[in-house]
Each structure stands twice: as C-alpha cells, then as structure tokens.
C-alpha cells in the first residue's frame, strides 16, 4: 500500500468524495475520469466499487459508453445521507434503544386523544391571544 501514512478514510467519506466529483462534472463521466479527478490515490477498482455502491443507493445512474459505463449523479450529498440514514433506521428494530427520537408511534386510540388535546391547546391558545407566546 502506498498510502499507509494517510489516515484511512471511511466508506461514507469516499462515497461523498466520488459523488461530489461527479456533481462537479458537466455530464456523464467514466470511472477513469473520477479516479483522475480525485488525484489518483484511489485504485481504479476502488472507484468502481464505490460507484456501484452509489448506484445501489440510487445516488448515481449509469449508461453504457463503449466498453465501460458513464456515470451521472442523481442526488446530492444530502440526498445520499438521507438515503443512508433511512437504511440505518429501517434496519434497526430496536433503534429507540439507541436514538431518542422526537416522537414514537401512535396507537389508533392515541391519535384520537392527541387530536382532542391539540384542539384544546389551540382553543385555549386563541382565548389567551398572544399572552403566552
């Protein structure tokens, strides 16, 4: 390995790098172009692997161009992050153990109760006018 001094970059970071390189391009580009663009310190196969991963995540599309593929970005960094985050949350059945999410699910009865409560809150809020806020 030639880049042993370099701190090892995480998967997510590499995907972000490749995606941003493609987004700076003005049209579909080949994997070789991406590799060159990133300064050539990534192996060609690594670039291909990352592009394939991005394809699976729906962040890029590809079309055949001669013997290889030309790649086009379809989402931006935030879109890719959103997709990955959805995967993380979807894959964890007991994520509420780890991530304290803002709200939890509602039972049907809860929903009715909640609508009543919100209705009450609104009507008392109207009565108080701008008193509280």
């Amino acid at each position, binding site marked *: 390995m030639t880049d042993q001094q370099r701190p090892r970059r995480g998967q997510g970071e590499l995907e972000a790098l490749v995606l941003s390189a493609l987004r700076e391009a003005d049209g579909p580009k080949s994997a070789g172009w991406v590799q060159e663009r990133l300064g050539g310190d990534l192996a060609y196969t690594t670039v291909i692997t990352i592009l394939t991963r991005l394809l699976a995540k729906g962040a890029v599309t590809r079309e055949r161009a001669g013997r290889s593929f030309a790649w086009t970005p379809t989402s931006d960094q935030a879109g890719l992050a959103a997709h990955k985050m959805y995967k993380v949350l979807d894959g964890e059945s007991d994520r509420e153990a780890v991530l304290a999410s803002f709200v939890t*699910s509602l039972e049907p009865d809860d929903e009715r109760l909640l609508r009543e409560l919100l209705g009450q809150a609104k009507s008392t809020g109207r009565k108080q006018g701008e008193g509280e806020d």
Partner: protein
Amino acid sequence: MGVFVFLPLVLPFTAWPIARLAEQRLHPRTATRLLTGVAAVMAACSTVSLGLLMVVGTAQLPGNPLPDGWSDPEVREAVPYDEVAGKLAIPALIAVLLACGRTGWRHGRVRLRAHRALAGLPGTEVAVLPDEVPYAYALPGGRRDRVVVTTGMLSCLEPPERRALFAHERAHLVARHHRFLLAVQLAARANPFLRPLRTAVSYTTERWADEDAAQAVGSRRTVACAIGKAALVSRGTPVGTLAGLAAPGPVPRRVTALLGPVPVMRSWPSVFTSVGLAAWGAAAGTVVSALSSANSAVTMAFILYAATPL
C-alpha cells in the same frame, strides 16, 4: 450468606411502584436520575449474585476448570438449594452477559452507522436531510453531537415549533440522555424484573427534554403542539415503530403533561405521600440488594479462600 444471595435477584420488585408513580409525581429530571440509579445498582447486584451462584454450580460439574476444593460440600452448603440454583445460574449468567454485550454492541453500531451516513455533509450541529419521511432525533458522539431532522418533519411544523423541536433534541444531547437510556437498557437485560424501569426512563427522558425545550422557547403550548403534530405526521412511518404500549401511549401523555402545570422540582418526596413511600421503598430495596450481594460476595470469598488448597 444463605438466602441473601437470592435477594438481589428478586428485589427489583421493590422498584415497581416508583417506576409507575415517578413519571407523574416527580420532576422528570429527578425521576430519570432516581430510576436509572436504582436500576443500575440493582442490576449490578443481581449480576454479582448470579456470578456467585454460578461458581457454586460450575464447581459441581465434573471436569470443571475450578480448583477441586471449590466443589466441597462446605462451599455448597453456603447456598440453599445449591444443586438447582447453581445449575440454573450458569445459563442465566451466560444469557445475561450475551444480552448485555449485544445491547452495547448494537448501541455502538447504530451510532457509528448514523454518523457515517452523515459523513458527506457539512459538520453543522443540525443535519437536515431531504426526506419526506418525517423523523428527528439526537445523535450523540462522533466528531460532534448532532441533531438529525428531515425536511418532511420540518415542513409540518411552524417556525416556533421547529425551535421547540431543536430545543428538545439539544436538551437530549446536553443532558447526555443516551447514557441513562443505555444504562437502563443494560439493567433490563441483566434482570428482566427491571424492565418497567427501562420503560419509565425512556418516557421520563423525553419529558425531561420536553420541559427543557419549553423553558428554552418560553412556551409549553408550543412544545405540546410540536410533539402532537410531529406524532400525527409520523404515524405509519418505519421510524416510529415501538412495541405496543398500554394506552394511552407516551405521546398523548407528554402532550397532556405539557398542557398542564409546570412540574415542581423537589429533591426528595415526603414519605407521607404515595410517591414518597414508593421512592423510599425502592431506595430500601436498593440498599438491601447492595448489602445482600456484598455480604454474599464477601462470605463466598472467605469460604472459597478456605477451600482452596494453597
């Protein structure tokens, strides 16, 4: 040590009343700290007891790696029903250790993966993800604590309610609620009788963050509306799945609490109220639990020391 070795295994029962009463009668901050502390101590004591029983149980097995002296009748006499209890303790302790290890590992993995998902974004405190699925949560650790929220969630809230949402998530991060949650998770794995405390703490941490958010934005009603609206748009999304809880669920209870008066901050409730009685009961249970396991551990150490041929 006699029957004392079994006490820490069943004493978590004494914390059930407080787990039930604390969320309504105590300030959420007091309730969270009290319940987490009780759960942590009781879980540790229960695991120590299991460990002691396991030593007795393992020493009975032929071909065990423990010193021969440990299988002396003298050692076994220290534990009532040593044959059954000892042998049951072996799988029980293994199950506890595996479950706790798994919980800790999952906790780390989810946080790591969530931070990785955000790797390409600028390192701001709030990460807004373009996703129609409405969710929001606090993500501790990594390079910095972050608040993750989707555009789907933000679009259903008015600006003051968004501030309430951010204040709520920040309160989680500032007060390090994930540590309380992990502690009660592990405790519930160590002794299933501690599960009501886990449920209670996951609710009281939310209430704690709600109250802090209400203070930060200066309106309890705004926080209540934000929670209500967020819950109504979140239903049916994969993010909200939580095992069915007894009605009414946590969200309506939180909204009701916010629409009610500000909870009073008391250091310790009077013994003459039901919640005070429950708190003292749990405290007594915790102390007895700690003393029993300490007593058992010391006794066992002496017995084993005497039984070990040196």
